[in-house]
């Protein structure tokens, strides 16, 4: 039941709307089928499968709204679901932030967000992928812990104002941490694709294994300000707060206008249009990008378009709710799903070659906000930290705690490498000067 075609989904949604007696009605049908397998100590630990399809109906009477959901789709259940949404709406308080439902929208065509090969993944495929990863570590007498997770699904929307949307998505993600048996070396790598045919868990495992082997006997060097090369996994993460993710997550217009954001201006207003970063910093979103194709509509039905957020260091746009966009008189832009940071052609290896003294950081971890006023964050390096001298990696170093703001970081930019796909984003490695490490960690 989980995956419905456009016609099947819209047929159900039309039926839902036909049962509505409310002023406005919005229906969203989504389905997802997924599976995962997890390993540790070069052996399988847990595995699972899920299969969910759900309909959400929102009914509105004036400024009152109510939502009900169901996961069976016979006429009687659909009718009950609509009735329940209407009952809840009648009981709800009026919302001062009410916005009428959107009418018909034009969505971009051509997003390659779904590939059938990913939908065809079986328990045997997962076992084979993670088996190859474990075999490589067995051969090299290293210990791995890994996670393979896949899903495919659809989202369909329809409302009483004529809005209609449908799209399918698929995704497969693999991550692996490889450690030396004595626990003195650790490495990490991850990758994600729309198309499962591109997944090669062993390739990522080799990267993590190489980092693990070369990070043993790390030396302690004094914390302080260093030139760093931050690999993409040190900039964006799908399992934890990240520096680039936190920065982009702060481009909310309302917070800025209300005075509680690093983008708030003294005396009121926000810093849109101001140059806040190095002029080489350009970040945009594009749901049609062939590398990170994604949904062309947001959860509330707004179109996702190619949008430039930061251009040559200048904040060009802020996203917001529909209510705030109208109140503030700003472009009505939803927050996108993926970010693209423009870069150059240099690989991480090229950036290392051009570095006289510095530190290569594979990954940053447990990043938490310290001061929202300056977007100061703290966290630690993890799974492969190396000292660079005269263009070469000289030796592994002990992990550091950092206290740094991505705003300061993107002003201290030395070089930008070639962007790579990471967690549905395109992220380049960055070379940053004066990155602030405040203490050492014994963690490996």
């Amino acid at each position, binding site marked *: 039941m989980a995956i419905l075609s456009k016609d099947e989904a819209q047929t159900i949604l039309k039926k839902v709307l036909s049962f509505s007696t409310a002023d406005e009605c919005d229906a*969203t049908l989504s389905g997802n089928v997924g599976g995962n397998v997890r390993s540790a100590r070069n052996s399988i630990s847990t*595995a699972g499968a899920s299969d969910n399809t759900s309909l959400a109906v929102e009914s509105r009477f004036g400024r009152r709204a109510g939502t009900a959901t169901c996961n069976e789709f016979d006429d009687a259940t659909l009718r009950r679901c609509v009735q329940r949404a209407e009952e809840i709406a009648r009981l709800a308080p009026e919302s001062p932030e009410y916005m009428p439902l959107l009418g018909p929208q034009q969505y971009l065509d051509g997003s390659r967000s779904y590939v059938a090969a990913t939908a065809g993944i079986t328990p045997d495929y997962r076992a084979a992928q993670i088996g190859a990863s474990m075999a490589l570590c067995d051969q090299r007498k290293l210990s791995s812990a890994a996670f393979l997770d896949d899903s495919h699904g659809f989202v369909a929307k329809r409302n009483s104002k004529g809005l209609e949307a449908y799209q399918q998505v698929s995704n497969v993600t693999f991550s692996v941490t490889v450690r030396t048996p004595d626990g003195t070396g650790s490495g990490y790598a991850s990758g994600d694709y729309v198309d499962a045919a591109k997944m090669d868990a062993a390739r990522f495992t080799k990267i993590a294994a190489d980092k693990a082997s070369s990070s043993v006997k790390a030396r302690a060097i004094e914390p302080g300000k260093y030139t760093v090369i931050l690999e993409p996994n040190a900039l964006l993460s799908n399992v934890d707060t990240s520096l680039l993710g936190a920065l982009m997550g702060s481009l909310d217009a309302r917070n800025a206008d209300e005075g*509680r954001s690093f983008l708030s201006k003294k005396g009121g207003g926000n810093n849109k249009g101001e140059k806040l970063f190095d002029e080489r910093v350009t970040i945009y979103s594009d749901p049609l990008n062939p590398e990170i194709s994604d949904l062309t509509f947001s959860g509330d039905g707004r179109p996702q378009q190619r949008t430039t957020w930061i251009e040559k260091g200048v904040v060009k746009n802020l996203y917001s709710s529909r209510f705030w966009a109208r109140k503030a008189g700003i472009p009505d832009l939803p927050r996108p799903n993926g970010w693209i940071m423009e870069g150059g052609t240099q690989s991480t290896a090229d950036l290392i070659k051009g570095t006289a003294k510095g530190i290569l950081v594979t990954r940053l971890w447990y990043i938490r906000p310290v001061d929202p006023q300056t977007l100061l964050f703290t966290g630690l390096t993890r799974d492969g930290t190396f000292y660079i001298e005269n263009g070469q990696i000289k030796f592994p170093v002990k992990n550091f705690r950092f206290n740094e703001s991505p705003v300061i970081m993107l002003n201290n930019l030395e070089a930008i490498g070639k962007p790579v796909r990471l967690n549905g984003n395109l992220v380049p490695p960055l070379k940053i000067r004066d990155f602030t490490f405040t*203490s050492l960690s014994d*963690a490996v």
Partner: protein
Amino acid sequence: MKRRDFVGLTGLATGALFLPSFPSLGNTVDPLRLLEPGLDVAQKKRLADVGLNAAKSAGASYADVRIGRYLNQSIFTREKQVQGISSTESFGCGIRVIANGTWGFASTNNVTDAGIAKAAQLAVQIAKANSKVQKEKVQLAPQRGYGEVSWKAPIQTNAFEVPIKDKVDLLLGVNAKALDLGVSFVNSILSQVNEQKYFASTDGSYIDQDIHRIYPSFGVTAIDRASGKFRSRQALSSPVGMGYEYLTPKAADKVAGPTGSDIIGYKNSYDMLEDVAAAAKQVKQKLTAKSVVPGKYDLVLDPHHLGLTIHESVGHPLELDRVLGYEANYAGTSFATLEWKAKGIPYGSKQVNIVADKVTPGTLGAVGYDDEGVKTKRWDLIKEGRLVDYEKIRDQAHMVGQKESDGCCYSQSWQDVQFQRMPNVSLQPGKDRLSVDELVSKVDKGIYIAGNGSFSIDQQRYNFQFGGQVFYAIEKGKITEMLEDVAYQANTQEFWNSCAATCDERDFRFFGAFNDGKGQPSQSSAVSHGSATTRFNGVNVINTARKLG
């Protein structure tokens, strides 16, 4: 956001048009539906047997079935308005099996004979596929079946039975008080959880449980528009394993902080209006408070703050799955390895006695049985500074030469596989009589920290950095003034070995972590941490103020 998260949220996003974003917890329902009974026990037993039999027929050597009904209600407000009311119900069945010595798991919201049997067969299929690349076969600690038993959280008032209007009035009253007292913004929230869980296993247990949690909270923000400076102060409430009675304040549950601090702590009931009034005053003081001079200070940590430090630097490193490497790819491992423990290196000073438990009434960890059918208990983790035990479940006990699980297995819902989670982990109060003022009176140069703020710790739990909500300077035994920009950095062992004194049981109370994340796919659990106000000597304090541009 991951693509799957978006798909999962999309349905809710429609209903959450006026809401801040929050995770999808289940199907949105009429609040009155949360009062309706679920399946009766006889129906659940019959369905569970269908799952157990299907799993055994497909080749499972062990199986457990969890039929769960998870109810959540959250009310969000800001300033004078209700942003949203979310009432959700999630009902379904998860089946875990061992086949060919390998775990398999599948779940379904089709709670029928056919749906459950199909999920059981899929779980076995997954286990068999993975057994081809499996090396360490699963070994379960022996567990006798309990037959048909039940357990209910000892609540006084089911929060779901309290009219929504009363809850909205409470939150809007909190907001009104904060605005009257001059804050720029205020958000308040009330979250309630009811887990109706049925567990059955091929060991012969049929366990029916009813668990409740509640979490009231708020945040106030003060803004100085001229300078552009803003500061916030969060509530000093804790999530608890109680009913709505937590929100009826009782004088006996209030514990004053040190003289001069303006801090009030709460035990088994919470005065939200009193706390927001204190917060409104303190958040404005924070705008002009003195920026801390970095250096070594003796820290006096209140239980609402120390609870999170215990959570991160004791609770997590003693999870046996981390110690053994099962969380290496996500949450991390632990410095407290089996080899490290064998050496007998002090975890902390002699003052440090830390106990794990899953039984204290009113705590978030309290249940009768865990999610693999093990009766819960209380046990020592650290005695007089020495590590004596870990937190473990059935498939781990044999790895440390033990024959019994600690009852720490938990799943956030029927659709996720259960695994080892943290029990309540608490620092025992001092045996000698010692008040907070007496504790502070001995400190020459220190900082008193109330409430938890920024927190970060490495993947093996050595190096951590914590902030707080409110900071006060201590000079020559007295609180002198409020401080800002404070965070302390320490090494877990050095920190716990610097523990100099802890107040007696009069000051003991629980802090709670409502959404502790672990596992892949990540799952959330709730856990409490008790302590009394405690002193740590010579801790490194940094100044977190920065300038942009």
